């Protein structure tokens, strides 16, 4: 679990560090000894299934909840001791982008700019442009779509020109176009402005497409931390999905290369079907040659990613937790 060889490089400044965060609710430990660093200019993914402790961790990162053990440092400032100074560097959305629905977008931004040092209000037009809300800024938030609320939430988080942006499941409830917009925005903020972006998600694909580094959390514990590509490769590199006809024959031919099975409804075998198979990367060309040589039509071959659950099984199986 070395963080030394990250994509963004270890030379970048650490903006936020969580150290041994632990939170108990009664006798249940919701978060146990969670530690990670987020550096300037990187998008850091916080991946885990619902109920894994993501939101509880985020609440501790932004001072909504007090950790029972451990501490949060933002730009070297201890959050619990220097709350006001530390939070001056943070913009965040926790859970849903909840804003005042009976106020307009502009009034919401003005409201939160009054909670910041002078000058935040002057950034409103620029931020509205950045999140593509200029046209609707004077409409009530109650008339906004979820995507627009999410964007307004991000504009709100950026009002204070933060060093770190913390977003909790920003893709939740958005359509693919909305997700793409948010993703581009995060990229822009990280690479153009050098902002650190911390984003939680329960979707592996989401994290894989967006993030530079990721921490995987399950049942309140971090299972792995590292560059996304490294983690995904560890569990997903030997998984393939093929679309072939006849499917049954294809499974027989693939058997020597690895375990193969037909997925989906059509297990009859003579028609076209989807096949999941685990073949080591170096043997994939041979397997495909065997199929074509036997007259099996191959329509598609794609690397199939394990479900998140499988990633966890894979990781927890390989490490002692």
């Amino acid at each position, binding site marked *: 679990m070395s963080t030394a060889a990250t994509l963004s490089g270890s030379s970048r400044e650490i903006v936020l560090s969580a150290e041994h965060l632990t939170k108990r609710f009664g006798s249940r430990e919701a978060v146990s000894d969670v530690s990670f660093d987020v550096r300037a200019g990187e998008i850091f993914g916080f991946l885990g299934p619902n109920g894994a402790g993501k939101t509880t961790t985020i609440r501790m990162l932004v001072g909504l909840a007090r950790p029972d053990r451990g501490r949060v440092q933002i730009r070297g400032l201890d959050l619990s001791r220097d709350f006001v100074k530390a939070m001056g560097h943070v913009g965040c959305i926790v859970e849903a982008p909840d804003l005042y*629905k009976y106020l307009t977008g502009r009034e919401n931004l003005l*409201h939160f700019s009054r909670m910041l040092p002078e000058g935040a209000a002057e950034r409103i037009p620029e931020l509205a442009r950045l999140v593509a809300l200029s046209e609707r800024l004077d409409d009530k938030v109650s008339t906004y779509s979820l995507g627009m609320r999410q964007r307004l939430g991000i504009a709100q988080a950026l009002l204070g020109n933060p060093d770190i942006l913390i977003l909790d499941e920003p893709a939740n409830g958005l359509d693919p176009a909305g997700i793409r917009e948010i993703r581009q925005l995060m990229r822009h903020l990280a690479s153009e402005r050098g902002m650190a972006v911390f984003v939680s998600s329960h979707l592996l694909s989401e994290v894989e497409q967006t993030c530079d580094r990721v921490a995987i959390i399950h049942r309140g514990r971090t299972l792995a931390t590292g560059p996304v590509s490294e983690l995904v490769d560890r569990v997903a590199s030997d998984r393939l999905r093929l679309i072939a006809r006849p499917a049954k024959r294809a499974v027989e031919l693939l058997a020597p290369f690895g375990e193969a099975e037909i997925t989906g409804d059509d297990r009859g075998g003579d028609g076209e079907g989807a096949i999941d198979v685990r073949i080591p990367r170096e043997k994939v060309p041979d397997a495909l040659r065997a199929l074509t040589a036997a007259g099996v039509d191959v329509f598609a071959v794609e690397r199939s990613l394990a479900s998140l659950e499988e990633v966890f099984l894979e990781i927890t199986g390989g490490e002692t937790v």
Partner: protein
Amino acid sequence: MRFPGLVENEILKFARQRRFRVVVLILMALIGLIVFAQSRGRERFLKGKDWHVETQERMARIQNWLRDGRMPESSQRWARFELDRLRYHVDRDVNPDAVSGPLFVRGFANAASYLLLPLLAIVFASDVVSAEFAQGTIKLLLTRPVKRARVLASKLAALLLAITLTVLFGGIVAYVFGGIAYGYGGWEAPVLTGFRSSGERLDPAAVRSIVLWKDTILAYGLAWFAALCVGAIALLTSVLLRSTAAAMGTMLAALIAGTILPRLAPSWEAQKFLFVTNLPLPDYYSGTPPPIPGLTVGFAAATLAAWAVAALAAAFLVFVKRDVLA
């Protein structure tokens, strides 16, 4: 960052919610109804009586008592004040028993201090913190670079302002509506106040004569103070319960209990330490016999203040310390 900005935020939220307009409408409708109903009853009561003759008789009777000399000292004071008051009205050719617009305003202070003003204070206060929880906006509010205590202080300031405006507005509406029915003049008329009951009998020793407008300001000041204290207590329930409905329900139950309790259990003296028993400050001030012996305006105001201070201390402590997990 800057405190006035924070208060501005809270005022904006007050003003933009429907609640404020509803309260304004409630006040106007209620006062209008009271004026209408009262003026109807009044007309029947005054019909067929010549107040000139009646007042002259009353003055003559009081003068006789005073000349008699057997009246105790304390009652003589009262008798002279009453005589002055009647003379004042006769000199201006005004019925001393008639309601004037200003008198209606003054009476409204007493009537409203029991239930109406505390109720409106509760309507405002029980929402102040719990609404932020209900909307989820508390998560934004408390992740800004502002101390939690300052956030709550700004909410408290806006709440006190809203209650103040409500009391003022109530007085103004009462004057406007009362004036339509009874005329707008009469602020300079003397009124007798400060009766104290000792046991069964009314003790006139502390009676004072005071100009109506001063008396009215005092009464509204007391009603305002009581409403602020209720607001502070309701703010605590809003912080503790994090639900507007629960906070409002709790406070309403307390208010209702407070109006019932003295009637059902008048012998239980410790109830004078409950905040609800102490709400009708204007009544205690003008000398209406209190439900529990020993309730003076000073005692009631001090008890209310103690409740409010304790409630605020608890509200700040909980608001600053508690995790936000909703």
